[in-house]
């Protein structure tokens, strides 16, 4: 299957990038951030690009993952072995509840986006008010001077790169598996025309819900990773709307119709913004740069860079074949 070949190539590139990044802590940091945002954007796009459900509240699930780990570690002393699954379970349950409520009432498009945003904001302000979760000051994870595999605490950065690289590749593999299965076809059918899909036997609510829960689960894993990597969480960094917008930015710029499109967006933009942040004295210059990119590309290249590339590639492949669409159509007419 050509899709799996693509995932294998992408996985090989991720491994190669990891090996290259081993040479330098700074590169490894960029690699880790790219994988983190890449996996998040891919999981976000499973909803938006593949199923047609645009969430503006995905930071909520990242936040649930991150706060599960941070609260577990700093207040209860629980290891990631307990807190990661806990975060995922809570996030998936939250998505199930949100999804059941939203889909039951047929919220779509703008309405679904703003409903998810509202859930996110309620969580943001509630956490900001919660003493147990450190209010808006956030939570600092306890650290010791020794490396600890049990607590996912390492002095070197490469073990973190290994973890998030694995998460990214697993996300792509799961996504590709689903895309070739009935689930993936049903998702795309729902995106293209919900009414027709239902008439052809697709249980719209169930399949949307499944997509939402899976996407939330992956986002929670990323959030859990973030908490262990940065060892600090606060509402702004893991529950803020900026994080949700970032997922959208990478997806739109990379290309939403393809599984790996958002990853391409992250690969192009994350190192770019790190670089800009370092060379430019101007505060927020990287955000200005990609806000401009976002506006321009969303208008002139609606299918994103990946979509544009594959369309070109397909056209080139199709060009030398003499019996193009027109002659097939003619044959049909004469038949």
């Amino acid at each position: 299957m050509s899709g799996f070949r693509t995932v294998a190539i992408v996985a090989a590139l991720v491994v190669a990038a990891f090996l290259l990044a081993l040479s330098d802590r700074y590169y490894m940091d960029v690699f880790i951030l790219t994988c983190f945002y890449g996996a998040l954007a891919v999981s976000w796009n499973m909803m938006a690009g593949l199923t047609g459900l645009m969430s503006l509240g995905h930071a909520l699930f990242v936040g649930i993952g991150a706060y599960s780990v941070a609260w577990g570690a700093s207040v209860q002393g629980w290891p990631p072995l307990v807190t990661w699954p806990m975060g995922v379970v809570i996030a998936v349950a939250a998505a199930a509840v949100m999804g059941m409520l939203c889909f039951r009432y047929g919220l779509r498009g703008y309405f679904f986006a703003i409903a998810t945003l509202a859930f996110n904001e309620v969580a943001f302000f509630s956490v900001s008010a919660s003493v147990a979760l450190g209010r808006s000051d956030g939570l600092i994870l306890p650290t010791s001077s020794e490396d600890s595999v049990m607590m996912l605490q390492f002095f070197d950065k490469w073990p973190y790169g290994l973890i998030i690289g694995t998460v990214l590749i697993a996300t792509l593999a799961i996504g590709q598996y689903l895309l070739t299965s009935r689930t993936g076809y049903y998702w795309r059918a729902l995106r293209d025309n919900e009414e027709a899909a239902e008439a052809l036997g697709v249980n719209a609510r169930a399949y949307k819900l499944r997509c939402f829960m899976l996407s939330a689960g992956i986002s929670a894993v990323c959030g859990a990773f973030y908490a262990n990597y940065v060892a600090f969480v606060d509402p702004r960094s893991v529950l803020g709307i900026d994080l949700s917008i970032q997922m959208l930015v990478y997806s739109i710029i990379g290309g939403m119709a393809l599984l790996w499109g958002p990853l391409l967006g992250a690969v192009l933009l994350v190192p770019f913004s790190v670089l800009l942040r370092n060379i430019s004295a101007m505060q927020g210059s990287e955000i200005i740069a990609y806000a401009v990119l976002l506006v321009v590309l969303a208008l002139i290249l609606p299918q994103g860079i990946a979509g544009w590339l594959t369309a070109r590639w397909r056209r080139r492949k199709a060009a030398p074949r003499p019996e193009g669409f027109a002659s097939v159509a003619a044959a049909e007419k004469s038949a």
Partner: protein
Amino acid sequence: MTFGIFLQAVVSGLANASIYALIAVGLTLVFGVMRIINFAHGEFLMIAMYGGFFAWSLFGVDPVMAILIVTPLLALLGMALYGGIVRLALKVPEINQMAVTLGLSLLLQHLALVLFSGDNMLVTQPRSTAGIVLGPVVIQVTHLIACGASLLLLGLIYLILRRTDFGLVMRAVAQSRDGAALSGIDIASVYKWAMAVGVGTLGVTGPLLVSILYVNPHVGALFTLKAFVIVIVGGLGSFGGVLVGALIVGLAESIAGAWFSASIAAAVPFAILILVLLLRPEGLMNRSLAR
């Protein structure tokens, strides 16, 4: 909570509601006519607030007078927004439309950060601290001015939509774009003017608001979100709905603020939104702008 505090919360809530209503009416006008949600709406409010602030700090113009300068500028900005971006955005899928206006919102916020720094700025005049005492309740003069101006402008917009040819054309386009086009209405020009009015109203709100509330580059985002809540609670594209939505949000927020902490109060509008989306997704006032 004593009755006095409650009354005070109600009064501030009403004042906020009138300001919110004016902000939300621009958003819903644009949505009603063009079916596009402008996520950068609050950023234009932010620009208007800076306009009011600098008119006062650089030229000593009273914020009430600054309205006369800032409003036409904002209306022009709205037209430019239509001509430069929204016109093109109408041709791309809904998700891309959201991306475009979200991108614009990010862009304006961070440009403002570069130009004006992240500092909080506020117009302070002798009347800033003045208040009218009515029994247990104090009404700030600046609130009173903003509230009065908002109500005045809301009434004016209502009359324009109801009584003028321009309003009729707008309502026609809101109801059926194709039908309006068939009867010879220039859709592009209606869109342009809807955008001019939608953004232009912020030119009134901005200068008045900057006497009440600090302006900083991120102030707009909060208002965009609240305006969303209001228009969805009221029913997208509905004028009366905006008033109801603003009243609910303004009062609930203000009362929750007196009762609980500020964070909880900030979450209240969104909790209301969730409830309304789930119970009555079409909004509380299910009448469109067109009717």
